[in-house]
């Protein structure tokens, strides 16, 4: 009996050590690509239904809008404006790289042409293009780890040679705890800082974590004092989302 107890302890110790070592090996084997992939997955999910409020601040004014959004993966998304009253019922549809808008006041579906893609979306500091292309972080960039702390990775994303993105570089800080971005800096090709996107206030939604507050701040001189805040008031991930939302018919149908 005495012998067995000592062996048991010994084996347990070896086993435990082995597990720890294996675990450590797993950690250090995690590549930057994996980190980014996780971030993208965490930001999108298989599907997402959210209620959002967006506040656009300029030096003179401050406006708040409320919207609900439905998306499947990164390719399809539907947004409906709920508030303020004069904008309520405006809907947006994005499928692959195309974007449509329905405006109930004028009862018209308009397809956003290429020349308008860089215009601001609903007066915010996001462009139409941002809504269409936000998911390309994994595919269009090569990633390199710049630094690491206990809590964060800092990753530089460089556009791949053929990637049709205007940025020269994106620097992303990723929380190790949640694999969610904390701060994203967008640089021009000459490496001027053009804008900064901060993700804050991580909440749990079902079995996922998600930043409930996004703050976009343009950094160019002509947009001094501008800021756009998006706060997520509710989010449901990976549920069944009706495919009907992602048709042109939907723009008008679901506008009410």
């Amino acid at each position, binding site marked *: 009996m005495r012998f067995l107890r000592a062996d048991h302890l010994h084996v347990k110790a070896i086993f435990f050590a082995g597990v720890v070592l294996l675990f450590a090996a797993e950690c250090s084997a995690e590549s930057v690509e994996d980190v980014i992939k996780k971030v993208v997955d965490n930001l999108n999910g298989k599907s997402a239904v959210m209620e959002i409020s967006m506040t656009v601040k300029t*030096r003179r004014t401050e406006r708040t809008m409320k919207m609900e959004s439905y998306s499947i993966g990164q390719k399809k998304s539907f947004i409906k404006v709920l508030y303020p009253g004069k904008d309520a019922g405006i809907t947006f549809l994005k499928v692959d790289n195309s974007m449509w808008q329905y*405006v109930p006041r004028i009862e*018209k579906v*308009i*397809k*956003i042409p290429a020349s*308008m893609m860089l215009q*601001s979306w609903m007066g915010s500091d996001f462009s139409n293009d941002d809504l269409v292309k936000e998911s390309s972080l994994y595919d269009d960039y090569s990633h390199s780890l710049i630094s690491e702390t206990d809590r964060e990775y800092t990753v530089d994303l460089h556009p791949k040679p053929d990637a049709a993105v205007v940025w020269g570089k994106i620097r992303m800080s990723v929380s190790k705890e949640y694999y969610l971005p904390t701060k994203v800096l967008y640089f021009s090709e000459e490496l001027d800082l053009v804008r900064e996107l901060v993700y804050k206030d991580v909440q749990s939604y079902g079995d996922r974590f998600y930043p409930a507050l996004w703050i976009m701040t343009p950094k160019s*001189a002509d947009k001094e004092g501008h800021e756009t805040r998006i706060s997520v008031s509710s989010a449901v991930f990976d549920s069944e989302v009706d495919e009907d939302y992602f048709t042109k018919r939907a723009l008008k149908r679901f506008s009410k």
Partner: protein
Amino acid sequence: MMLLNIAFRNVITHRKRSIITMLLGAVSTALLVFSSAWMDGSHQQMIKNGVEIYSGYIQITGAKFRENPSFDHLLFDVETLQSHVEAVQGVQLFSPRFESFVLYSVGEKAVGGMLTGIDPEKERSISRLHASLTAGNYLTQNDTNKLYIGQELALRLNVGVGDEVVFIGNGADYSFAADRLVVKGIFQTGLYEFDASSAFLAKPYFDMIMASDNMATHGIVLPENLEKSETLAAAIEEVVGVEYQTASWQQTMAALLKSMKLDSVFGYITLAIIFTAIFFVIMIYTLLVVYARLREIGIMRAIGTTPGQILTILILESSILGFLSVCAGGLLGAVFAYYFYLHPMVFSGMEEQFKQYGLAASAIPTAFEPVTIVRDMLIMFILLLLSTLYPILKVNRYQPIEAIHHV
């Protein structure tokens, strides 16, 4: 005095020479006067067109607006600004405008362009929008969603009077703005770029949908005296202060000015070539006549007339002829200038060319400026005089005996 008499007598005696010299002198003067009137007229027309069609003689914007035309740098209290500006001596009118970039959509088509809120009544005096009407009707102050659209833009969207055009864009508070508009009138200024990208609404209605009440992207000032735009702009700048920038057309349309200078240069070079030929011919004629009178001059020298006196007589002759021809030519040129001032010349078939140079109309009036006409006459007088100088000096070098014996 006696010399003058002699000079007169000589002029009258040698009629053929006098007539031909005067004819040449008169024609040159008439040509110079008319060409100047024509060049000045066409330049003034170019300025008027460039400035008056839309951009205005004096523009007031927020101080930072010119470099950075965003809604952060608008004119924010237009009413107060207007009262200050209209109080300045020399200002006839101040009219605010709000320009915004929008997406127009008709059917499946979506085209980007400008949508501008204007004061339709004031615009009648300040710009040519009203005068460029080609179909439908111009705007009135209380028009609502009635659109006044440029010809080429209407073509692109494939709309006519009464058709509907939808637009989406951002209001002055960056909020989303959209509306259904009905085409009330179509205009064609002749400036292709402008006609292909501009449309207008009455500002009261525009302000309502674009949240731009009492705001403007810029204001246009109509001076009482168009020539004094630059000084008036400076005066206004003094009054309104540093948060605004006041610019006269000379600053906003510097390229137009330069191209006019260029045009003048070409014009004067051409004239110079013609005048050179004339210069020589007058010199030749003077030479002929003076040589024909060599005996006469020689005798005068022999009886004691000094070379100085001979010189004086000959120069007086040239002056008399010059003076008479310049007066006759100046009058002739002035008459033509005045006629075409009242009845501008029309160049049919040259419209395309004109459009390229920003001249919307192909009728060009000449300018009629008495001061310029007198200036031209003076210039011609001096040139005519100079052209006779060489023969006169040459002849004066002859010794009396040589002269008398000249065959």
